[in-house]
């Protein structure tokens, strides 16, 4: 167990180092940091002074180590565009993205598993067929188009829901939450559907396929032959076995939710990290891009780690510490 965790941790740190290198190279070689930070009127002497102050006259590896040190202290530099510390800017916007991702992720998982199980158990029902057909279209629909169409129907035509922003937010410590106000919760609905729909169809199709596979296994047949109730067989035995592979893929999907949040946030003018990143790409705000790269990589690495551990908890066959096949 400990060896397993340790090995995964070392791998994760290696991945983060590689990403840090890329992000540093980006930071260092894209554009001229000195020119970006100083106005046109700066003298050559001023530039050299800044260059030395930023450590840009040092050898590459020294600068990289220096960079890692600063990153570990939470210093990602200054945004070219906004002239404020990048870490601060990102932290302000992180709660909006996390709340959106959390809500749509949970909704996608719960509904996806429920619909997947339903369509697997009622394979020939008309409702199952309808769900499967709609899901096929859902997979082909670009995320931004889903968002635009939802705005058209629910915000413009029906005028039921707001089309942009987070509504009223409440500041709790460093966290600005939209969960606590009516308008905040209402504002969350359309973006959450937009972000979660694709993942939902994906999870549903996966659960259905896995469940059908599991229902054909010998241990399910044996469970039936022992007269266990359908409930115990479907939701005890079959579902648990179905969820083992589903957890891995769903975990990785959580990463894409963060990525697709970029699109959703832009469509709904959601004040999160994704929309911030898009603006950084548009204005070539390199420190923000580099920091976002690190942030995304960190989220992916952490999710991967959690998925591995979860896998380990759910599947006893991986727990080798008790010794395999003792007689």
């Amino acid at each position: 167990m400990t060896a397993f965790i340790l090995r995964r941790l070392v791998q994760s740190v290696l991945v983060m180092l590689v990403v840090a290198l890329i992000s540093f190279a980006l930071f260092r070689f894209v554009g001229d940091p000195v020119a970006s930070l100083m106005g046109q009127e700066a003298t050559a002497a001023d530039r050299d002074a800044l260059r030395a102050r930023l450590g840009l006259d040092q050898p590459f590896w020294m600068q990289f180590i220096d960079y890692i040190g600063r990153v570990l202290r939470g210093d990602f530099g200054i945004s070219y565009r906004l002239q404020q510390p990048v870490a601060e800017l990102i932290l302000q916007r992180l709660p909006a993205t996390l709340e959106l991702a959390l809500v749509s992720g949970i909704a996608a998982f719960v509904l996806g598993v429920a619909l997947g199980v339903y369509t697997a158990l009622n394979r020939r029902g008309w409702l199952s067929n309808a769900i499967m057909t709609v899901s096929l279209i859902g997979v082909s629909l670009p995320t931004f188009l889903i968002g635009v169409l939802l705005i058209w129907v629910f915000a413009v035509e029906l005028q039921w829901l707001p089309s942009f922003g987070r509504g009223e937010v409440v500041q709790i410590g460093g966290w600005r939450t939209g969960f606590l106000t009516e308008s905040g919760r209402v504002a969350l609905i359309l973006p959450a559907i937009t972000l979660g729909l694709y993942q939902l169809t994906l999870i549903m199709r996966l659960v259905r396929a896995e469940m059908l596979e599991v229902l054909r296994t010998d241990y399910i047949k044996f469970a039936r032959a022992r007269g266990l109730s359908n409930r115990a067989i479907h939701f005890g035995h079959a579902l648990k076995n179905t969820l083992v592979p589903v957890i891995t893929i769903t975990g990785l999907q959580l990463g894409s939710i963060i990525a697709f949040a970029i699109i959703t946030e832009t469509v709904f003018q959601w004040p999160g990290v994704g929309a911030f990143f898009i603006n950084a790409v548009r204005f070539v705000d390199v420190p923000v891009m580099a920091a976002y790269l690190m942030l995304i990589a960190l989220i992916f690495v952490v999710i991967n780690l959690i998925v591995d551990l979860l896998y380990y908890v759910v599947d006893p066959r991986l727990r080798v510490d008790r010794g395999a096949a003792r007689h």
Partner: protein
Amino acid sequence: MSDFTPEDRPNALRRAWDSDLAYSFRTSPVALVSGVVATLIILGAVLAPLIAPHNPFDPATLNLMDGFTPPMEPNAFTGNVYWLGTDNQGRDVFSTILYGARTSLFVGFAAVLFAMTLGITLGLIAGFRGGWLDGLLMRVADVQLTFPSILLALLIFGVARGFIPAAYREAMAIWVLIVAIGLSDWVQYARVVRGATMVEKNKEYVQAARVIGAHPVKILVRHILPNVMGPVLVIATIGLALAIIAEATLSFLGVGLPPTQPSLGTLIRIGQGFLFSGEWWILAFPSAALLALALSVNLLGDWLRDALNPRLR
């Protein structure tokens, strides 16, 4: 002299019609409808300069008075009728869709071609050479696969923009976009080709070709490539749908093509702005075109996969 005269051979068209693939196509309603829709859009895009009633990019043909004409209704000032209406600048929406699809498809096909060339080349090298090079390439592929390709394309695009001087950014945008989308999607080709290469390279006929001293590149191209054309075609078709969606997404986000070179994604971005003022057609028709294109190509890919039934992961 060959005793094989051209008359003995069934004509190529006849042969294609009789093939299993063509039979499966003729008998699948989904494939037929998707095929017709995709063909119509592609034809419309290719022939846009001939078909389009107006050239939306020629200011001389535009009349601002024609702006915001609803579909199938005469314009209040000029009396002109447009099938799908006009946008704020008086551009015919139907024509902008044809030109937009032209751009979308160009980027899509070019990105797929780039990804395919890159993937096949790296896959052949990895499979044929093996060793550390293979290990390295496949590690990169694994890591890349866990990343959503749209995010990757976005990052590559952002980095590339950083390297390109501001003055050239607009002109280079389309090529940067093609490279970014292509780079985010080469892994599947490489995996399939690598797998096939590793299987084929140990077969006797390849060994025999090696023994008689055939050049490795020749062996790869002559003997191994034909074996993977089926799966590659499937990946490329689904890849085309993905590339079109990726391009539309980036352009919609405003980080893809500039407004002077609009694709379907750019048109939707523009149309979204008029949603609240009631000019729904500026948004609806480009959206429908994109949806029809992406869905039909996607369904064609699905059908092709089932029909060829290659081992795809």
